[in-house]
């Protein structure tokens, strides 16, 4: 699908995600006030009120634009990495178990169901709380360890979501004529999977992976809001958590990260949706 053929919504989504990725990669070189500096002369500057702080400042005087740009990196990297690794593990498990069927399939499917039986947020919360604890509750867990634990937990959350999609798609493809033909010609199972199954299953996984990125961004934000995620306003979610109490005095300081986060989730959902509807029409033609 070419960019030109996309609807206006999808075009906007692609452009927005492009801007976000630009912030992720080049964010720290954009000449703006440092996100950690608080400007005592400009506390609670409104949206578009000053040239120095285009999106205003929160009631501590932190520049919102540079904070949003800095927040892009942890928020996006956490979701991209956990969806990437989780998707890889999940789809490998799903494809192999659905192809082999029998006992292996039963075991893998039961494992997926076990993880799915606990809501993503509760599971993430429990894992983060358990893995990121210190013997002494008064000592702060370092941010780097927190980030690793969050990525690990979200990966575990993602594995069954994408694994199930891969399993379902493989089940429907592995009985098609060309697979049966390849098998009867004596092609090895590993070759059949790589040549015939994976290329057909991948589009379904891509479509759901986009939706999964949206889910992970939201869960990460919720974790921050509950105080077990990333602290000190480093990610979008924790920016929202930090200014929660200031909503009355400087509402725009929450509106800015909320809008950025929501736009990113909307863009991911839109692209996932487009991919999925394309997929449906392709399947329909078969």
């Amino acid at each position, binding site marked *: 699908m070419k960019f030109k053929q996309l609807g206006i*919504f999808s075009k906007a989504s692609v452009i927005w995600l492009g801007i976000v990725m630009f912030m992720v990669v080049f964010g720290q070189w954009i000449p703006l006030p440092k996100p950690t500096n608080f400007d005592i002369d400009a506390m609670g500057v409104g949206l578009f009120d000053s040239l120095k702080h285009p999106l205003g400042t929160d009631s501590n005087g932190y520049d919102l634009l540079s904070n949003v740009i800095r927040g892009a990196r942890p928020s996006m990297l956490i979701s991209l990495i956990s969806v990437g690794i989780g998707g890889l593990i999940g789809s490998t498990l799903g494809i192999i178990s659905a192809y082999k069927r029998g006992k292996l399939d*039963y075991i893998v*499917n*039961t*494992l997926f*169901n*076990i*993880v*799915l*039986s*606990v*809501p*993503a*947020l*509760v599971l993430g*919360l*429990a*894992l983060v*709380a*358990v*893995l990121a*604890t*210190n*013997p002494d*509750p008064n000592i702060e867990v370092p941010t780097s360890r927190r980030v690793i634990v969050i990525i690990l937990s979200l990966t575990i959350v993602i594995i069954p979501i994408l694994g199930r999609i891969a399993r379902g798609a493989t089940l429907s493809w592995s009985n098609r004529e060309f697979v049966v033909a390849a098998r009867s010609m004596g092609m090895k199972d590993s070759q059949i999977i790589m040549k015939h199954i994976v290329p057909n299953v991948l589009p379904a996984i891509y479509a759901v992976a986009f939706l999964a990125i*949206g889910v992970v*961004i*939201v869960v990460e*934000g*919720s974790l921050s*809001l*509950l*105080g*077990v995620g990333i602290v000190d306003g480093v990610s979008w979610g924790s920016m*929202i958590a930090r200014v*929660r109490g200031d*909503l*009355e005095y400087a*509402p725009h300081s*929450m509106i800015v990260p*909320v809008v950025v*986060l*929501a736009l990113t*989730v*909307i863009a991911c*959902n*839109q692209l996932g*949706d487009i991919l999925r509807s394309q997929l449906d029409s392709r399947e329909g033609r078969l």
Partner: protein
Amino acid sequence: MGLDRTVKSTEPLKRLAQLLLVVLGSTFLVSLLIRLLPVGLEDIYVVNPDPAGRAREIHNLGLDLNPFAFYLRWLNGFIHGDFGSYVYPGPTFVPVSQYITRTLPVTLQLIFYVQIVALTISIPLGLLSAYKVGTRIDRFISNGLFIFSSIPSFVLALILAFYIGVKLGWVPPLGYAQPFCSAEDIVRANACGFREHFKMMVLPVVALAVPLIASYTRLLRTDVIATLREDFVTMAASKGLSNRRILWTHVFRPSSVTLFTSAALNMGGLIGGALVIETIFSVPGIGFEIALAIASRQYFALQAYIAIIAFGYVFFNVIVDLTIGRIDPRSRERRQ
């Protein structure tokens, strides 16, 4: 024929066995997880300086057992109605069941309202947009709902709490009121009664229902579009029935299977999934209690809550399996 019958009779049993495995598996994993803490549970809960007393306390908590024996001990208690305890230094034990009897009804009320609101709004919308498929109305409904469904519910909750609760002051931004006033409520002048109850519930219900409305409408729309192509719809139309009557009596029921399946499965998911919303609005439900238990390191309590959530998931799965055939008799044949 004989073979068919055996397949039919073992299928639900197999399904039940798998669901049972899911509960056992998830509770075992949680039990393993809390034993694998970077900090030993005995260092959190046991503060007795006397070695003999310390050993006794550790034994009482079952922490001297290996993880498998520890799990079996917990499972035995759980089956017999002992959900474990909050452990405070001393040692003082407060049974989790006390908390559950207080918080679970609140969460169930919340979920019930959410489902009612979501279904009453999404069923007419889904039917309308499927009936008008491809028109401006359909596109308006679909796109509008899409954007609403993409707004994370905690974002929606914060915005609602601020603008409706604080700025406009129409309803209290946080808290909870019992629908029936107990003697204690009256003595302490707590907010209670139906009026207060619904006022307090409005915002959390809206925040949770909006994303559901979008997904339900979409599910129903897809299925109704498919049903409208069926012969019996053409038949009903040619008999001269009104469109409204066809939609509601002939089309809705066979199209609603996916919708009700998804609604039932969401019930299980919402038991713990309403956690953030419950925390934001201070609704004392099970999700709020989970967040508190985690913050105060009550891992035995966490274990009990997650077991209840897993049971809820399995319970609603079984309900779905049992009722689907009743809603759409065709699916009974299709499944064999």
